[in-house]
């Protein structure tokens, strides 16, 4: 039987093979965290940087983790803060993240649905680009990670109502943006 996150954390907190336990936690959660950071529009190198910083923070704080929430919620909360801080820092320094560079090349072999589909995806990307960071984060968690609003609220330090409002605002903006093209 696979050990639960909480039993792995207990082992970590009792100083039992810290590195091995931590590596297991990373293997279990690294992909979802990285994907969420990447969906925010960061290039691979930047997303890698943010993801590493998140895990280093987790290593430093895991001894104080009180098991009051799921580990993944806590991890994503740190991920949310790190990502937003990183993007804001980039904006302050006048650097653009990936979405700003215009548009990915959708006319590649990966796109199986023709040029019209590519056009829609370009509009989608442009639409997502103009969303405020928090709305973008909530939208990605809800649509792609299929998280419930309680968890999203906990991750983004808002209320359930606030998380719902963020999602619906994001959808409304995307609908307006895409239908105006």
């Amino acid at each position, binding site marked *: 039987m696979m050990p639960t996150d909480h039993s792995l954390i207990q082992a970590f907190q009792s100083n039992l093979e810290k590195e091995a336990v931590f590596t297991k936690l990373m*293997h279990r959660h690294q992909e979802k965290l990285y994907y969420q950071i*990447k969906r925010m529009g960061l290039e691979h190198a930047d997303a890698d940087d943010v*993801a*590493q910083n998140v895990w280093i923070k987790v*290593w430093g704080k895991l001894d104080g983790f009180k098991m009051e929430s799921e580990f993944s919620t806590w991890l994503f909360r740190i991920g949310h803060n790190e990502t937003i801080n990183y993007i804001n820092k980039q904006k302050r320094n006048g650097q653009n993240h990936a979405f700003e560079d215009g548009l990915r090349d*959708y006319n590649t072999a990966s796109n199986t649905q023709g040029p019209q589909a590519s056009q829609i995806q370009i509009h*989608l*990307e442009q639409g997502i680009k103009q969303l405020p960071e928090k709305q973008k984060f909530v939208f990605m968690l809800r649509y792609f990670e299929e998280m419930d609003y309680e968890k999203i609220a906990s991750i983004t330090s808002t209320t359930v109502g606030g998380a719902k409002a963020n999602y619906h605002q994001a959808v409304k903006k995307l609908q307006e943006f895409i239908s105006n093209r």
Partner: protein
Amino acid sequence: MNSMENKRSNNSLLEDQNLINSLISKELMKEWEQHVIACPPTYFQSFPHKVIERIHKPTKTSIIYTFGKLSIAAVFIFVVAGLYFWLPKTNSEAALNSIALQEIPINEIDAYVNNYERVADADLQNEIISIGVNLEPTNLSNDSSN
């Protein structure tokens, strides 16, 4: 009860997703996501190792940061000490001498005078004791009746 809640929550998730899927099909959304989250093929195998390495590596930035803090403290101490030793002291003495009497608050003058009077009284008392003169009221009254 739990399954009812799950069903409701799933329905609400589907409703939320359909808000977007009415404009962009689920497949296109999925394809867009695949595009966005793409990363080098062996990235996730090497990632934990990179993180563990960074955890154990002493950070150069922290040394620079500490050094920076120390140098700021040293400069601050140097400036304060410099001001203390090299600023002309005569300025402050001149300032003390130039204080006009009317600038001294009344209560400070009162306190000074009272204090001085108390010292003078004590001195007088000591003088009387050392001479041995008796100034008790009884003697005084006898003197006056005579």
